[in-house]
């Protein structure tokens, strides 16, 4: 494919998709929660920009709507809620450094290669000029999951989950010019509800075990047993 023959809009979509991929890496490597929330907001902005540009190219008004929903939800509302949650949990200065940063980034690069390899046959059937974005969005989804694996802080895992959703949205926009509006609204609503639920959960967890380190959740069952033993003894 010769990049020079593509219209400027498609070139811009490719550039934005590449930047979204970079933001996924940045999200993975960013150890400060506050900064990670900002990176997440930027990723949302990039995805929304892709949707708006695709809408402009295909003169499809419903893509503008998708872009607006994404902008409102992923760039403004959810980051704001996370921010507030962070302040209420007093985690602003909390850092969650990776155990093996070099190894994690290596794995991330391997995931990108894998995503490209897996997506290659799918992209063959696609006619749109930006079909290569499918590989990128698959990589963003997988990197979000990887983030949930390597991070111990529950809030960072939420960010990984939301980033996965960004990747799915990017795939939908780039390959089929967006999902049907009903689906999209449903997903947006789901994400919002999930966010609210996460917030409530976190406050509860923080209240009961005084930490959001998910590795310590595994101690819950053990500690309950221990409690029972101590109760029986007297």
């Amino acid at each position, binding site marked *: 494919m010769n990049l020079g023959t593509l219209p400027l809009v498609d070139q811009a979509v*490719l550039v934005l998709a590449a930047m979204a991929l970079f933001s996924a890496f940045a999200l993975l*490597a960013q150890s400060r929660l506050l900064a990670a929330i900002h990176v997440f907001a930027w990723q949302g902005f990039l995805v929304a920009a892709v949707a708006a540009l695709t809408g402009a190219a295909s003169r499809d008004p419903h893509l503008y709507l998708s872009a607006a929903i994404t902008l409102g939800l992923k760039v403004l509302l959810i980051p704001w809620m996370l921010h507030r949650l962070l302040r209420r949990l007093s985690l602003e200065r909390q850092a969650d450094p990776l155990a093996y*940063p070099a190894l994690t980034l290596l794995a991330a690069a391997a995931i990108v290669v894998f995503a490209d390899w897996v997506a290659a046959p799918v992209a063959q059937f696609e006619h749109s000029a930006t079909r*290569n974005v499918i590989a990128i969005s698959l990589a963003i989804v997988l990197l979000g999951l990887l983030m949930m694996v390597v991070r111990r802080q529950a809030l960072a895992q939420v960010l990984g989950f939301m980033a996965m959703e960004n990747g799915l949205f990017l795939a939908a926009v780039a390959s089929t010019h967006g999902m049907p509006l009903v689906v999209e609204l449903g997903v947006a609503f789901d994400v919002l509800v999930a966010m609210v639920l996460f917030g409530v959960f976190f406050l509860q967890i923080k209240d009961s075990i005084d930490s959001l380190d998910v590795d310590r959740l595994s101690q819950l069952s053990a500690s309950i047993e221990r409690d029972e033993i101590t109760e029986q003894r007297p």
Partner: protein
Amino acid sequence: MDRLLSLLLALLQPLALLAAAPLFTAVVGRFKARLQNRRGVPLKTPYRELRKWAAKEAVVARTASPLFRAAPYIVFASTLLAAAALPVWETASPGAHVADAIVLIGLLGLARFMLVLAGLDVGTPFGGMGASREMLVANFAEPALLLVVFTLAMTTHTTNIGAMAAATLHGAPVLRPSYMFALAALLMVAVAECGRIPVDNPSTHLELTMIHEGMVLEYSGRHLALMEWAAQLKLLLFAVLTVDLFLPWGLATRMSPTAWLLALPLLLVKLAGLALVLAVSETVLAKMRLFRVPGYLTLAFLLALLGLLSHVILESAP
């Protein structure tokens, strides 16, 4: 006639870079001073310093071996040869045939090898400290730089820097995500390689924090003049490399003095722009702790790698 012109070009371009190198450093310093509400030193000062050092007696430590006295000449010569590989105002640069982009990086590696050995030669703790840190920087900066070159070479199908610039000039203007990443990586690497803030502070003389200054601490007189001139040339070299690879618009593509007249002022504007960018970033950023430097360099390597990956994934699918 053409052969004569090309020979002239091969000699003139690196010599012009060599002559302008202290000026470029001075301009960066002047911009930085203005941004910090200072007046800054006159632009002539680096030249005066070089002349002063060259005239002074060289003082060498008793424990130094002959390598210590040979190293400045090798460092200077290999940096100059690396600079000769760059097209400055004309893409058909003959030097680019002797040394392509990979050889250029190799020559910078040779210069660094000798510089680090010179730092270790006297046997003082400062030299060893600077040498160890310099090798840490090189450990990531050099591969990142190679990856930047690979990204461009995969797009233009050549490693000759002149041909790379010509290919970018002749093709239609294209937005390439890979170039974006590669440019960011190149700028980060350039900052690290040239020992600028936030990796190293060129104006520090606190022994425990310095990298480049630590290695040349024992040098004086003409040896110091050569080492410093080579360092200044390296900074200009990276600036011109950035221009050649990413902003070649305006370079002359054929050998004619009229085209050169157009190319030169444009080059000056672009270099001034890069100097300003460097001055702003040095004003805004603070020097990092040494153990954050690997993180910084890993980011540069990652950016270069992403450039390569996005080239393959996004731009070159069959």
